[in-house]
């Protein structure tokens, strides 16, 4: 194209304008790349910790536990129980029997106990995935010279057993089932509490509340509450749910007190505390979604003589629902990863029983991860890495189901 003649007062700056655009384009692209790199580094780091070689020594050689030439692995349940009874102190045996009578325990379960209590494999050293893959020979050589009795195994800390076993104090037998159930129960009460109240409050504020000073103060406070640090919600939950409402949250009013707790540090308290934490987020997101419902749709409904409630229920809510659910997904993702408020509310750090009612003691995955990472032994850091993978999968599963639910709502015309 022939160049346009320069008109008096204008200058030829097209090149400069394009260059400026290119600079910004590159910057934006770089930001995206940095974000993705950070994410990849995070995932690689976790995977690196969750797999690798482990060297361990049994404190009692399993071969010495063979009876009449039958190795330990082939012995019957009764033989194994007898072994436990003869080896453990009577106090330890009675305690195990009280937790769950031996008559009710499966062979698998009893075998686990023997590994845990008698054989007691002791971890000598743990290697991450990267050195395990690149320096296997060197690892073997070092081990042979320093710990000739130790056995070396390549272990995936994340395994089916890890997900299905309860928590124990031994790295080899520890699992996260208790924590997974704890997280699920807690999040269930969080949703049951925060979703209806949050959406209800949003409907009130958007559709009914008049624009006066009082309501503006409420609105400002809700916006500010969304930014309050989570530990403060933990202290609030401790004061209200654990202490003040203890008869309710411990189940005493319903006559359902869990004999092992007898106080308000229960799944219910934790769920309600996290519910308080995410309530402002759900309210704000629901308000945005309700506000985004076009005026023309409200007009259509009012124009045919619908009442306010008919309009809200039949048109505003269905159209706002995808947005409301998106906000709720964000809120729940936040709640499921929260640690600090639950520490304050009193999550248990070491329990091996699944929660089975709103009034159970509990632990959650983030609490479990936090506890394991603070241990000095390397093997617990590997366990923490595996738990993080479990937490991520749990989070993605919950989010995916919420997204599916949302898409179902969006498809209605």
């Amino acid at each position, binding site marked *: 194209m022939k160049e346009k003649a320069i008109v008096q007062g204008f200058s030829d700056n097209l090149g400069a304008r394009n260059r400026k655009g290119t600079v910004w384009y590159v910057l934006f692209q770089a930001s995206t790349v940095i974000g993705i790199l950070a994410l990849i580094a995070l995932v690689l780091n976790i995977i690196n910790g969750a797999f690798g070689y482990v060297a361990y020594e049994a404190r009692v050689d399993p071969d010495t536990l063979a009876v009449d030439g039958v190795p330990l692995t082939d012995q019957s349940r009764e033989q194994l129980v007898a072994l436990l009874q003869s080896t453990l102190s009577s106090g330890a045996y009675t305690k195990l029997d009280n937790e769950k009578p031996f008559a009710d325990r499966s062979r698998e379960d009893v075998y686990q106990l023997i590994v845990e209590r008698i054989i007691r494999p002791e971890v000598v050293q743990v290697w991450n995935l990267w050195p395990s893959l690149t320096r296997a020979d060197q690892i073997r050589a070092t081990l042979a010279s320093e710990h000739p009795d130790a056995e070396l195994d390549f272990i995936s800390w994340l395994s089916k057993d890890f997900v299905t076993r309860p928590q124990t104090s031994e790295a080899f037998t520890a699992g996260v089932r208790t924590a997974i159930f704890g997280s699920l129960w807690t999040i269930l009460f969080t949703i049951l509490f925060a979703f209806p109240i949050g959406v209800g409050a949003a409907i009130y504020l958007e559709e009914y509340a008049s*624009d006066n000073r009082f309501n503006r103060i409420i609105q400002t406070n809700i916006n500010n509450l969304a930014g309050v640090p989570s530990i403060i919600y933990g202290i609030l939950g401790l004061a209200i749910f654990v202490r003040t409402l203890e008869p309710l949250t411990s189940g005493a009013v319903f006559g359902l007190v869990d004999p092992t707790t007898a106080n308000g540090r229960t799944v219910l308290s934790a769920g309600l505390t996290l519910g308080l934490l995410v309530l402002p987020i759900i309210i704000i997101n629901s308000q945005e979604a309700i506000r985004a419902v076009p005026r*023309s*749709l*409200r*007009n*259509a*409904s*009012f*124009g*045919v*003589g*619908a*009442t306010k409630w*008919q309009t809200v229920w*039949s*048109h505003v809510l269905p*159209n706002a629902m995808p947005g409301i659910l998106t906000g709720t997904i964000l809120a729940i993702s936040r709640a499921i990863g929260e640690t600090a408020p639950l520490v304050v509310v009193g999550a248990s750090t070491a329990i091996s029983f699944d929660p089975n009612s709103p009034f159970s003691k509990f632990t959650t995955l983030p609490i479990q991860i936090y506890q394991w990472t603070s241990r000095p032994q390397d093997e617990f850091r590997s366990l923490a890495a595996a738990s993080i993978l479990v937490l991520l999968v749990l989070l993605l599963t919950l989010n995916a189901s919420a997204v599916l639910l949302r898409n179902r709502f969006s498809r*209605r*015309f």
Partner: protein
Amino acid sequence: MATNNNSNHKYVIETHDLDIFYGSFRAVTGVNMKVERHKITAIIGPSGCGKSTLLRAFNRMNELYAGTSIQGQVMFDGEDIYASQVDPVEVRYRIGMVFQKPNPFPKSIYENIAWTARIHGYRGNMNELVENSLRQAALWDEVKDKLHQSGLSLSGGQQQRLCIARAISIKPEVILMDEPASALDPIATLKIEELMQELKKNYTIVIVTHNMQQAARASDYTAMMMLADRQARSGTVIEFDETNRIFTIPKDKRTEDYVTGRFG
């Protein structure tokens, strides 16, 4: 509001010294007009003179916008619709509305009408009602095979006729139309105008339009609105008469300038 059809009044809607306010701003001043039964009354005038505001005052739709209020009276079949015991929902049930932008519900064509009938407690044969409403709106033949498709899948003109079908499904006495054809092409516009001629046998229609040919072609009476004084920016009806008189022998110089295209 009494539910008996008080149709011995010749004028369905009458306003007495009607002022309409947005907060403290008086958008419309001193309107006195009478809407005759089974006629089409057009409201014309330049942009921003309060035509739509006046129209929405006829069925209390203005109240959905925060801060609006009125002074004076709007009488419907001889009763003040702004009286304290009157429920605005009842007013909008009896005085229906069709909007500038077609706004079918994001539901099926069938449900657009069925939902509207259902909320008013309709217990009769729903299929019949849907068919009759669509026939009256001259839409039945075009949609009878896709009643369960989304109302939003129709063309703009069809959507607007669906909105009309929806409005008449609950048998209002008056239909207010706020520039119903302004978003449509000339063919769809013509269809709406023909439809209005059919509908006026059973309903009273008040229509706001920017299109003076439309007012001249389609209406029986015309109200000419204009800003009463340029400082206050407040609109009023400067002339109200039979349409052919407004367009041929207007009394007001401003009306003459406007309808002949010398102004606005």
